């Protein structure tokens, strides 16, 4: 009996592992003039013992920028000033951050932000060996998020592969 259950769970595990590829991390829809890529939501852990930030990315191949939409929680409702991405070699600041909405969620405030990043800059951040740090500045506070080193390798490999797929298919109709 134990063997049967073990085999059943092992089979499930193997079928799930074999499915673990980048295709499940994005969707693509052809449009009249271009293609729409959507990278599914990912959690970015806080470096300040806060809850993680969750972000997704949308890219139209006719555009030079990627639209990033992110959720994060804070103890107070903030006026967002800017978003900054940094790593050991690169730094990119975004001043035009759109707040889609701010809602009260239990005791915290949920902020939904939208900002744009040049496709090339995003590629550079994901090609780096160490995780970028995402800083959100607002109302005199700074919230900091970054991938943990053990998760970064997988994240960097998978997103880089997706960005390569996008680049190689960019001009196809």
């Amino acid at each position, binding site marked *: *009996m134990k063997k*049967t259950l073990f085999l*059943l769970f092992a*089979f*499930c595990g193997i*079928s*799930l592992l074999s*499915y673990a590829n980048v295709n499940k991390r994005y*969707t693509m*829809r*052809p*449009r*009249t003039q271009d293609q*729409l890529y*959507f990278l*599914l*939501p990912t959690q970015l852990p806080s470096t300040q013992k806060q809850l993680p930030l969750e972000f*997704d990315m*949308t890219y*139209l191949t006719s555009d030079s920028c990627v*639209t990033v*939409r992110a*959720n994060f929680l804070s103890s107070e409702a903030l006026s967002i000033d800017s978003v900054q991405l940094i790593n050991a070699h690169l730094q990119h600041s975004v001043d035009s951050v759109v707040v*889609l*909405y701010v809602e009260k969620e239990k005791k915290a405030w949920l902020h*939904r932000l*939208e900002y744009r990043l040049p496709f090339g800059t995003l590629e550079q951040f994901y090609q780096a060996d160490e995780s970028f740090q995402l800083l959100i500045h607002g109302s005199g506070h700074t919230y900091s998020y970054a991938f943990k080193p053990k998760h970064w390798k997988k994240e960097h490999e998978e997103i880089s592969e997706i960005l390569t797929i996008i680049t190689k298919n960019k001009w196809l109709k």
Partner: protein
Amino acid sequence: MKKIFFALSLAVVMLGLSSCGTVGLVGAVYTGYTEPAAVTCNEVGSKVATAKTVSVLGIVAVGDGGINKAAKAAGITKISHVDVKTTSVLGLFTTQKYFVYGE
């Protein structure tokens, strides 16, 4: 004999529960597919958002899979279509993720 009876009972319970967690195609061991949920006359927009619901053991089901919530998350006001991706393991852990496309 007892063992066979137990194994069969377990299989029946699992299949029974699987119908609680998923609607549509059901794989007894693993389910993973995407299907259309809604289509409008609008052209495929430039925005996408997701909403998710989760069911555990067919006993607890939580989440907000509402199109309204997803549309709000991306600032979508004109919906072009909605896809739903269902994944389920043994019918015990099921997630339904809605992809709302629009402008």
